[in-house]
C-alpha cells in the first residue's frame, strides 16, 4: 500500500506540472494578455489594451518577471502558487488574491465535497435497491427517476428546486449564504444529475457482480441474498463505480460555478466566472490551478479508496486479466 500511495502522489505531481504548464502557455497565448511583454513596449501596449493603470502594470512586470524569458516567468508563477504567494489581481488590486481565495474557496470546497459524498451515497443506495429487485417495478421506477435526473440540465433542476422548496413551500432559503440550510438546495441541484448516471452504473455493476461464479459459491455454502450482496457483491461492485466517480467529480466541480451564481453563493465559482469575463488573467491563472489541485486531490482520494477496497491493487498494484 505504501508503494501504491507513493506512486499515486508521484503521478499527481506530474499531472500538476502538466496542468500548470498548459495554463501558463494558454495564458501567454491568449489575446490581449499582459504576459505578452517584450522589454520595449509589450507591457505598455498590453496595459492600454486592458485598461490597466501604468503603475499597476509596472508592479505586474515586476511580480511576473515579464522582463525575463518565459521559463523564468513560469518558474516564478509555479513557485508563487506552491508557496501560496498569489499576489494581486487586476480586478481586485487592493485585495491580496490570497485573502480573496480564503474568503470564497471554503464555501466552494464544502459545496463540492458534500455534493460528492451525498451523490455517492445516494447512488449506491438507489443502485443496490434496483439491483436487488432486478427486473421488478421497483427496479424500473428507480431507474426511470434516475434517468430523469440526468436528462434535465442542472440549472433547470436548480430552478425547479428553488420554485418548489423556496417559493411555493417556503421551507428552504434560495439566495445567499448564512448557514448550513443554504447548502441544501445547491447540493441537491448538483447531486441530482450525478446520481442519475451513477446509480444506474452502480445497479449494473452490482448485477454483474451478483452473476459471478463466486456468488454461486456463496449460495452453495448456505448463504442467502443478504450474504451475497453485503458480504461479497457490494464491495466488488464499488470498484468499477469508483473509477467513474473521478471524472464525475471534475464535472461536479465545474457545476458549482453555475450553481453558485444561480443561488448567489459567494464562492470561488463567482470569482472565477468574473475573472474569466473581465480577462483578469492573474486571477484566472491562480483559480484554474486551484480547481485543478482540488480535482487531483479528489482523484487521489478515489485511488486510495480503490486500493483500500481491492487487495490486488494494494498488494501488487494491478489486477490481472483486466
Amino acid at each position, binding site marked *: 500500500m505504501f508503494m501504491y500511495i507513493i506512486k499515486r502522489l508521484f503521478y499527481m505531481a506530474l499531472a500538476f506540472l502538466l496542468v500548470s504548464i498548459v495554463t501558463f502557455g494558454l495564458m501567454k497565448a491568449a489575446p490581449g494578455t499582459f504576459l505578452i511583454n517584450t522589454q520595449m513596449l509589450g507591457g505598455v501596449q498590453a496595459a492600454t489594451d486592458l485598461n490597466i493603470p501604468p503603475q499597476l502594470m509596472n508592479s505586474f512586470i515586476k511580480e511576473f518577471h515579464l522582463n525575463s524569458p518565459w521559463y523564468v516567468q513560469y518558474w516564478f508563477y509555479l513557485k508563487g502558487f506552491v508557496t501560496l504567494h498569489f499576489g494581486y489581481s487586476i480586478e481586485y488590486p487592493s485585495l491580496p488574491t490570497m485573502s480573496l481565495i480564503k474568503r470564497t474557496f471554503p464555501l466552494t470546497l464544502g459545496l463540492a465535497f458534500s455534493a460528492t459524498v451525498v451523490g455517492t451515497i445516494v447512488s449506491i443506495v438507489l443502485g443496490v435497491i434496483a439491483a436487488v429487485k432486478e427486473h421488478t417495478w421497483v427496479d424500473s421506477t428507480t431507474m426511470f427517476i434516475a434517468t430523469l435526473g440526468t436528462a434535465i440540465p442542472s440549472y433547470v433542476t436548480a430552478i425547479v428546486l428553488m420554485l418548489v422548496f423556496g417559493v411555493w413551500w417556503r421551507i428552504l432559503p434560495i439566495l445567499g449564504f448564512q448557514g448550513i440550510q443554504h447548502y441544501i438546495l445547491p447540493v441537491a441541484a448538483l447531486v441530482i444529475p450525478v446520481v442519475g448516471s451513477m446509480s444506474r452504473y452502480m445497479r449494473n455493476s452490482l448485477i454483474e457482480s451478483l452473476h*459471478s*461464479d*463466486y456468488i*454461486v*459459491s*456463496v*449460495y*452453495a*455454502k*448456505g*448463504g*442467502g441474498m443478504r*450474504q451475497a450482496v453485503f*458480504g*461479497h457483491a457490494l*464491495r*466488488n461492485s464499488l*470498484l468499477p463505480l469508483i473509477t467513474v466517480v473521478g471524472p464525475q467529480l471534475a464535472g461536479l466541480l465545474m457545476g458549482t460555478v453555475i450553481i453558485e451564481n444561480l443561488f448567489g453563493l459567494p464562492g470561488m465559482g463567482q470569482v472565477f466566472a468574473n475573472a474569466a469575463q473581465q480577462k483578469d488573467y492573474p486571477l484566472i491563472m491562480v483559480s484554474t490551478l486551484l480547481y485543478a489541485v482540488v480535482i487531483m486531490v479528489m482523484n487521489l482520494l478515489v485511488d486510495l479508496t480503490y486500493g483500500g*477496497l*481491492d*487487495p*490486488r491493487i494494494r*498488494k*501488487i498494484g494491478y489486477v*490481472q486479466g483486466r
Partner: protein
Amino acid sequence: MAPLLEISNLSVRFHSDKAEVFAVNGLDLSLDTGKAIAIVGESGSGKSTVMMAVMRLLQSNASITGQVKLDGTDVLQLPEKAMRRLRGKEMAMVFQNAGSSMNPTKTIGDQMIEPMLFHHMASARDARQVAVKLLHQVGIPDPEERLNNYPFEFSGGQLQRVMIAMALIADPKLLIADEPTTALDVTVQAEVLILLKKLQRERGMGLVFVTHDLAVAAQVADDIYVMYGGFVMERIAASELTTHLVHPYLRGLVQSIPKIDGPRTELPYIPGQPISITGGLPDGCVFASRCDKRFVKCHERPRHISISQQHSVSCWLAEGGVEQA
C-alpha cells in the same frame, strides 16, 4: 439402508427466448454413504446441470421435475429456507474453476469459514481454528498465515485445495466435485485427485465426482454413470468397466483413453458432433446419429434396462443379451 443420494426420473429443461433446452432427460442415480460415483460425459451432456439441480442452484429459467432424495428427503420439494440449511452443511460443492469461484477481494480465511458462520456452527475465531486444521490436511503450508492471503496469492492447484477444504469445513455427508481438476496441470491434477479420494475415505462421505475424463473416473469412483445428451447411457461398476461394458458410446470413450504401455498409434475418437438438445430430442436413441452399431430398432428410444445389480444400460443391443456387443 436408504441411499445417501437417490435421484429418480430427474428432468431439467432450460427456457430461453429462442428454444427449450432438454438438458437432463429422466435420470436415475443412487449413491450410498461412504461411496464414490463418477458422472462422465462430453461437455454439454448435462453433468453440471444434474449437480446444480441437486443443490437447487440452477438459474430461474430452469424447470425441474422428478425426485432428488437426500437421506430420504426430496430436496426438490423443500422451501428455499430449508434448502439453505442443507447447502454447505449436509451437501457441499467444489467447482471447476477455483480462481473464479472465490471472491478476489476477500481473504481465503474469511471465505472458508462462511459455511460454519452461515449455519451458526461456531464463532468466527473457532471456525478459523478449524480452517487452519483443514488447510493443513489438504497440504497448504503455513496455514495460519495463509488464512490471511487473497485468492490471487495462490496457485491454481493450491486454490483448488483451499476450495476442497472450504467445502469440507462444515463436515458434509455429500461432497459434489464438478470437474475439480479439469483446469489444472496433469501432475497437479493427480495430486488433487489423490487428496480428494483420501479425504472421502477418511470421512466416510458420499462423493459425486463429475468429469469428462473416463480414466480419472475409473480411478476415483466405485460406480460410473456415463451421460450423453442428458441421458444416462450406461451405469457400470468401475471394476467392470473394461470387461463388461455394453454401450457403443462407452466403448468409444474407453478406446480414446491413451495407453501408456501400448503402441503409439493415433487414438480412435468418436466421430460426429455431440447431439443438439436445443429445441427438441430425436424420437430414437440420442446417440444413434454417431453410433457405428446403429440398426432399425434405434429409431425408437431404448429403455434403461438392468443387466445386473450395479449394471444398467440404455441400448437396444442389451435387450437381447450382452453378448451381442
